[in-house]
C-alpha cells in the first residue's frame, strides 16, 4: 500500500455532531444527543482506514458527515485539502463522483423498483451529465465486470439477488463514477461468513487495481486485523485510540481497546472462562464529564471522572490515545 504521509485525502478537525431530540413531556429542556464530540482524523491516500467501536459510538455519523449527507454542528472537513463541509450542493457536485459510500444493509440500500442498469446508470447521469448514452452503457458494463457481476444482471431487479450479490451491486454503484475515496459502512456485517470472504476479496482487489482509499467502518475486529492499515477506535463520539493495525493488536494502549480485543471469541477457546463485569455505554444525551470510558474502566482515577483526556501521541510509539494513563 502506498502512503505519502503528509497528503491526507480526507481530514476532519474538531468535528462535532449534535442531534436535538424531541422534548420530554415533563421537561422544558431540549435534550441534545452528542453523536460526535471532537473528532480529528486524517485519512491518507491509498490506505484502508478502519473505524471500529460498538453500536452508537458514532461510526455511521462520521461516515455520513464526511460524505456530506449530514451537516456538522461544528468543526471542519477537508477533501484533498479543500474544505467541503461548508459547500452547498452545487459546489459539492463535482467532487461527489470522487467520494462514494457503500451501506451496511444490501436489502435496504437498493431501490426495489430499479433494475441493475438503472441503479448503476443513475449516478453517472446525475454526476457526469456530459456522458453520452453510449458512454454510460460502457461504464456500466465495465463496472459490472470489475465487481464480478454478470452482464445478464442488468435487466434484473434487486429481489432476484442474494445478499452477497446485492452487496456486489452496491459496490458496483459506488464505483461506477470512478471515485478515489469510498466509505464502506459495515459492508459485510449482514452477510454470511462464506460470502463475507468473497466481498472482502473483491474490495481488496479493487483497491489494488484502482488505488482506492477506504474508510472501512466495522465492529468486527478480526476483519480489521486482516484488512486495515490504520484504525481509529471510537467510543461515545470520540476517538479513543488511533494507530496502525499492527500496533493496535500487538500493544493496545487504551483500556477500551484492550477490553474490545479481549472480547473477541477465539477459535483456540478459553477466553470466556472468567466472569466479566456487565458494562454499558453511557447515555450520549448526558455524557459523563471526564473520560467517557471512566464508568467501565478498570484503571480509572478521580481525574478521569472530571477531566476529558485529549487524543495525544504517546512517546514510546506512534500510537495516539485519549487516556490520562496511557503510555
Amino acid at each position, binding site marked *: 500500500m502506498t502512503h505519502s504521509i503528509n497528503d491526507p485525502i480526507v481530514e476532519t478537525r474538531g468535528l462535532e455532531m449534535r442531534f436535538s431530540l424531541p422534548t420530554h413531556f415533563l421537561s422544558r429542556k431540549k435534550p441534545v444527543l452528542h453523536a460526535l464530540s471532537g473528532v480529528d482524523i486524517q485519512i491518507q491516500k491509498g490506505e484502508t482506514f478502519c473505524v471500529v467501536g*460498538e*453500536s452508537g459510538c458514532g461510526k455511521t455519523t462520521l461516515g455520513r458527515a464526511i460524505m456530506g449527507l449530514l451537516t456538522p454542528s461544528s468543526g471542519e472537513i477537508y477533501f484533498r485539502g479543500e474544505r467541503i463541509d461548508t459547500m452547498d450542493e452545487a459546489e459539492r457536485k463535482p467532487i461527489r463522483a470522487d467520494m462514494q459510500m457503500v451501506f451496511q444493509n444490501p436489502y435496504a440500500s437498493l431501490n426495489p423498483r430499479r433494475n441493475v442498469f438503472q441503479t448503476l446508470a443513475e449516478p453517472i447521469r446525475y454526476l457526469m451529465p456530459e456522458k453520452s448514452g453510449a458512454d454510460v452503457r460502457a461504464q456500466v458494463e465495465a463496472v459490472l465486470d470489475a465487481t464480478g457481476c454478470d452482464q445478464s444482471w442488468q435487466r434484473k431487479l434487486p429481489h432476484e439477488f*442474494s445478499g*452477497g*450479490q446485492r452487496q456486489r451491486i452496491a459496490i458496483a454503484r459506488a464505483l461506477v463514477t470512478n471515485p478515489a475515496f469510498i466509505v464502506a459502512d459495515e459492508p459485510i456485517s449482514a452477510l*454470511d*461468513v*462464506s*460470502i*463475507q*470472504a*468473497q466481498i*472482502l*476479496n473483491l474490495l*481488496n482487489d479493487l483497491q489494488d487495481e484502482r488505488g482506492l482509499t477506504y474508510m472501512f467502518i466495522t*465492529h468486527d*475486529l*478480526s*476483519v480489521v*486485523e*486482516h*484488512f486495515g492499515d490504520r484504525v481509529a477506535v471510537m467510543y461515545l463520539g470520540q476517538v479513543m485510540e488511533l494507530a496502525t*493495525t499492527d500496533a493496535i493488536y500487538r500493544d493496545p494502549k487504551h483500556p477500551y481497546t484492550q*477490553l*474490545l480485543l*479481549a*472480547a*473477541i*471469541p*477465539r*477459535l*483456540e*477457546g*478459553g*477466553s*470466556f*472462562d*472468567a*466472569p*466479566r*463485569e*456487565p*458494562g*454499558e*455505554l453511557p447515555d450520549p444525551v448526558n455524557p459523563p464529564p471526564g473520560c467517557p470510558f471512566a464508568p467501565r474502566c478498570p484503571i480509572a482515577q478521580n481525574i478521569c471522572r472530571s477531566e476529558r483526556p485529549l487524543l495525544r501521541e504517546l512517546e514510546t510509539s506512534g500510537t495516539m490515545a485519549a487516556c490520562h494513563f496511557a503510555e
Partner: protein
Amino acid sequence: MALLDVTDLHVAFPRGKKGEVEALRGVDLTLEKGQRLGVVGESGAGKSMLAFAILNLIADPGRVTQGSVTFDGQNLLELSERQIRRIRGNRISMIFQDPMVTLNPVLTIGKQMIETLKAHRSISTREARRLSIEKLNLVAIPSAASRMDAYPHELSGGLRQRVVIAIALLTDPELIIADEPTTALDVTIQAEIMSLILRLCRDNDVALILITHDLGVVAEVTERLMIMYAGKCVETGRTRDIIDAPKHPYAVGLLKALPQNSAKGAKLYQIPGSMPPITNLPTGCPYHPRCERSTDKCRAAMPPLEHGVACFHPMHENGARDDAEAAQ
C-alpha cells in the same frame, strides 16, 4: 440414557397446490446431561427450524413430517399441549436473539419472573420474589432487587438479555436452547453474556444447544458441534476436533474463509456461490455446486452421515484422532 435424542427429524412447508418443501431433511442429534452443543451454519440452513421442532413449536403451515424428539424418555412430538407445557419453559428453557420475544413490554421484570415461577411451581409470591432476585443476582444484574420494578424498555439490550437468561434459569432447567442469543449485541456485551451462559451451564450441569453462525463463539462455549447446510447436518463431532481438523469440505471452507486464518493482506479463501434455497436444491450432495472435491458420485447421490461427516470425499479420511494415533 441420553437427555435428548433427536432422530431423523423432518420439517416441511406446503408449496404450490400439493407440493411441499423440506426445511429440515432428516437431522439426528444426541445430547447427554450437561453437554453443550453448538449448531452452526449460514442463514437459512435450518438452525431455528431445528430448535422449534425440538420444542414442538413449528407454526402452521409448517409441520414435522417425520422423526422423533425424545427428552428424558418421552417423545415430545407425541405429547398433548398440556403435557408439553410441563417441559417447555420449565425443564427446557429458551433464549432467543430478540429478548422482546420473551419479555412482555407492559409487565415489570419482577411480575414476569414471579408469574413464570408460579406457573410451574406451587410456591408463595414471596418465595417466588426471593428466587427471582436470586437469579437476577446470579446473572450479575446490578442492584437486582430494584430492577424487579423496571419495565423492559428501561434496560439496555445487554441487560434485557441478562434478564431473559435469569428467566430461563428460574425453573432450574436441564436444557437451555439458545438461538443466536448475542447476534444483536456488541462484542463486549456478547463476551459478557456468553461467558455467563458458559459458566452457568457448567456449574449447574445444564445442557445447552447454542445456535450461532460464529465459529469463535462455538469454540469458546461448546464441547460438541454440528454444522448444518441446506436442512441437513453435514458434520458433527467434538468441537475441538472439527475446528482443528474439519472433514467436510464445507466445514473446511468455512474455517479457511475466516480472516484470522489468513496471512495479513493475503487473499482470503473463498467458497464460490451461496447456499441454495430449500425450494431449489441440487440433486445429490447439496454442497456439490460449491465443492472443490465433488465428483459425479456427489451429483448423483446424497452422501449419508457416517463417522460424523456426510461426504463421499471427506478430508482426513481416518479422522483427526486416527491421524494423531497413527503419528505416534
